[in-house]
């Protein structure tokens, strides 16, 4: 128990410490260095369970603290790599974001957001998830205080509704209802509706491009990339939802995958294109989970990791470019390749991973997802291929617009810390893409566990 408590203390204490530190009057540059050190330690700490069997699987389940089913805090095969994902994304954000756009407030938001994400990934209790959900939304709204009110209106309304729906679903979920009853179906539908809004599944997707376009890009990327909605669906909905509900969500998600990729192809604003790319991949992950077969769930879990990392990298590329060149209009050619070849290469690799290019983790996820999706939906499954093709076109179009053209006169190369961040994130995607077996087998076990849970729950419902 002691190693587990120490580990949990470190996981929650480190980002919390950073939040507290950011509220003090510490010098901004020093705060950034301390935050990077904290994030690096946190990343190492979250990687420990992968190599130490004591922490590989644990449950802390005091029944009286918060009502509801599932463990209050736990680590199992599904969540084993997720804390490392959240911590790694935080570290990358701190390293790769230009100092100009990441002040003390921004740093505090990154730590808060990571804290909420970690809390979400380590719990199974619906009420805790709902609280964390609301907390992360509140933190995002806090980060947008200085931005336009129009965006706040749109994104705030959608996110508010998603939080209310999810919370209502969570409250109904913990009531002792018979399996397969109307109340259970209502609670699952509410949870799904909340998750669909947060993940931007058609027709509840329009707020995401608006948020990216008018809000602050950095916080939007960090808020979206870990895909907490996916986790909520995997833990709460997939094990219990009736097949018909999952089927409807899967079909909607497949359609969203293609629709958003097609939208990304024609956008003029780089931010909007990036947002649509996120929606597309996030929808494919949702489709995989809701198809609920071994292969698609494994594919979705792999694609979740791949798309989170790729999207964080792509979004951060835009942050870096915007900090130097202002608004990025895709109808122009910005000519930044000569000064930032490394950023151009990183953008290309991250984008190609998004479109399922061989040799990257995205390919592995998409291959698994495609095989399973075609098995489940013989015709609609091929929408994954269409989405991949359109994503590839959108990514290359963005690449050509952002990096090709007459070289710009201002010598604005990448800073060493930014360069290290992009090299690291690209290396992670390529290494796991070339040697995917350990990750795939871990996700397979997690997927198998989800399917087993589902079969057990559905079996008892039938009885």
């Amino acid at each position: 128990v002691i190693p587990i408590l120490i580990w949990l203390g470190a996981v929650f204490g480190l980002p919390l410490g950073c939040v507290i530190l950011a509220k003090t009057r510490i010098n901004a540059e020093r705060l950034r260095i301390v935050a990077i050190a904290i994030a690096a330690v946190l990343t190492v700490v979250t990687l420990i369970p992968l190599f130490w069997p004591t922490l590989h699987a644990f449950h802390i389940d005091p029944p009286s603290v918060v009502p509801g089913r599932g463990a209050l805090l736990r680590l199992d095969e599904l969540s084993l790599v997720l804390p490392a994902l959240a911590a790694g994304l935080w570290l990358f954000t701190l390293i790769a974001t230009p100092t100009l756009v990441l002040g003390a407030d921004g740093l505090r938001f990154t730590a808060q957001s990571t804290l909420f994400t970690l809390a979400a990934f380590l719990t199974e209790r619906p009420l805790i998830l709902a609280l964390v959900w609301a907390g992360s939304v509140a933190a995002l709204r806090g980060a947008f205080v200085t931005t336009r009110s129009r965006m706040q209106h749109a994104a705030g309304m959608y996110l508010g509704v998603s939080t209310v729906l999810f919370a209502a679903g969570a409250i109904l979920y913990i009531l002792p209802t018979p399996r397969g009853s109307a109340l259970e179906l209502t609670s699952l539908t509410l949870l799904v509706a909340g998750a669909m809004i947060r993940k931007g599944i058609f027709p509840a997707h329009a707020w995401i491009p608006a948020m990216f376009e008018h809000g602050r890009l950095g916080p939007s990327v960090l808020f979206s990339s870990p895909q907490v909605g996916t986790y909520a669906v995997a833990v709460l909905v997939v094990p219990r939802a009736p097949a018909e509900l999952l089927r409807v969500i899967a079909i909607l998600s497949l359609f969203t995958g293609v629709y958003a990729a097609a939208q990304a192809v024609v956008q003029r604003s780089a931010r909007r294109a990036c947002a649509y790319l996120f929606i597309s991949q996030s929808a494919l992950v949702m489709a995989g989970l809701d198809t609920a077969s071994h292969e698609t769930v494994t594919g979705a879990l792999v694609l979740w990791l791949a798309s989170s990392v790729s999207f964080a990298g792509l979004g951060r590329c835009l942050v870096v470019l915007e900090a130097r060149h202002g608004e990025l209009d895709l109808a122009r050619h910005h000519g930044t390749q000569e000064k930032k070849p490394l950023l151009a290469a990183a953008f290309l690799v991250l984008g190609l991973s998004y479109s399922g290019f061989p040799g990257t983790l995205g390919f592995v996820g998409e291959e698994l997802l495609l095989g399973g999706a075609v098995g489940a939906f013989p015709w609609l499954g091929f929408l994954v291929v269409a989405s991949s093709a359109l994503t590839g076109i959108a990514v290359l179009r963005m690449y050509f617009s952002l990096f090709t053209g007459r070289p710009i006169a201002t010598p604005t190369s990448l800073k060493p810390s930014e360069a290290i961040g992009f090299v690291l994130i690209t290396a992670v995607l390529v290494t796991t893409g070339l040697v995917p077996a350990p990750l795939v087998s871990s996700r397979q076990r997690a997927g198998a566990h989800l399917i087993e849970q589902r079969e057990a729950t559905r079996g008892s419902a039938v009885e």
Partner: protein
Amino acid sequence: MTAPARVVQIFILLALASPAVLVAMLVVGSIPRRPLSERAVARMTSGAVITTIASLAIALATYLVTGVEPQTWTARKWFATTSGALQIDLLADGWGLGFAFVAAVICGTVSVFSYRYLHRERGFVRYFILYACFVLGVQLMALAGSSEVLFAGWELLGLSSSLLIAFFHERRSPVTNAMRVFAIYRVSDAAMLVAAVLIHHLFGSGSLTVLFREGMLTTEIRSTPQLAAISFFFLLAAAGKSGLVPFTGWLPRAMEGPTPSSAVYYGALSVHAGCYLLWRAGPLIRTSLFAEILVIGAGVMTTLVAALAARVQTNVKAALSYATLTQVGVIVIEIALGFRTLAFVHLIGNACVRLVQFLTAPNVLLDLHGLEGAGAARGPQRPRLYALALQEAGLDVLLDALVVRPFLALVRLGTRLDVFLSGERPRVGPVGRETMP
């Protein structure tokens, strides 16, 4: 496994590892701010290409002299799934090794030409990184024994090709054309991916042995409708990559890249990649009359359109590319008719001849002072036919009218819907032509 077979395997692996290592070295070498010197890049590239050529020569010689049986072997199990495993299978037979060897020699020739041609060019290292990706892609495609390996090679060819078309990216037109070519390549890649999925569902694995080797298809499998579907998607993939009808229009656009890359891509290897795929899938195509008719139709149409277009081109590279395409159409017809040996020899011969013609094209211009535009100066004898030939039989216009414009109109409708749903005011105007891929 016999000792000669083991030797063949080892040298095939070496031939594949060599360009892969080159890609890694050039990429890692480009990360520091101080770029790699031209000499270092040239030495690394020469070393890798010579290793590939020598390895394939030894593998081919061992194969032919010792009489090793054609075989598919798993170089590496990539990862396991519940419905099988994705694995790196390589198909070692005389044809594949022969094609891989000729491709390696062609790549070696062009790399030597490229050192001088691109001397002091700003994107020297970038060119050779993409070139190394291309060499790897060609070798993977030539020796592929599973759909995963074939797809990886196929994608590498397409990506490196598009990025090299946009090599001179300071000008807008190469980039626009590269985007257009890439969009067509994505259609081709999507078709290849669909074919790969169908193969997995039909055979339970991605192995291509049954489809690519003569006499392996059982009567039971021959009667399945999926085989015709796989043939169709292979043809679609080949059509995109080789510029067969209806995708002929991208070929002149691809001439924006440096001459050595045009030579190796659109004269020698990339444009023949589709032919090689169809040649490999010959046993599969001949199981279905529908597929045979489609392939013959594509070949005939391509030959006619390319022969017509070649006669009205006003620059040497475009004229040569259409001349290449005319022969590609003929090769495709030969494959569909079952003349496999003839088609293979034709493919290799055409690739070599066109390579030489492309590489000498700049010299011809220099020597003759005015070859470019000579055809146009003569003026059209039959204006309507001339106009038709100039527009490549209107295939691009047709694709735009039937696919691109309806697609964009539909997507724009979606954009309006999204703006309405989000309650925001559009900050930019409607999507214009300049944003089209």
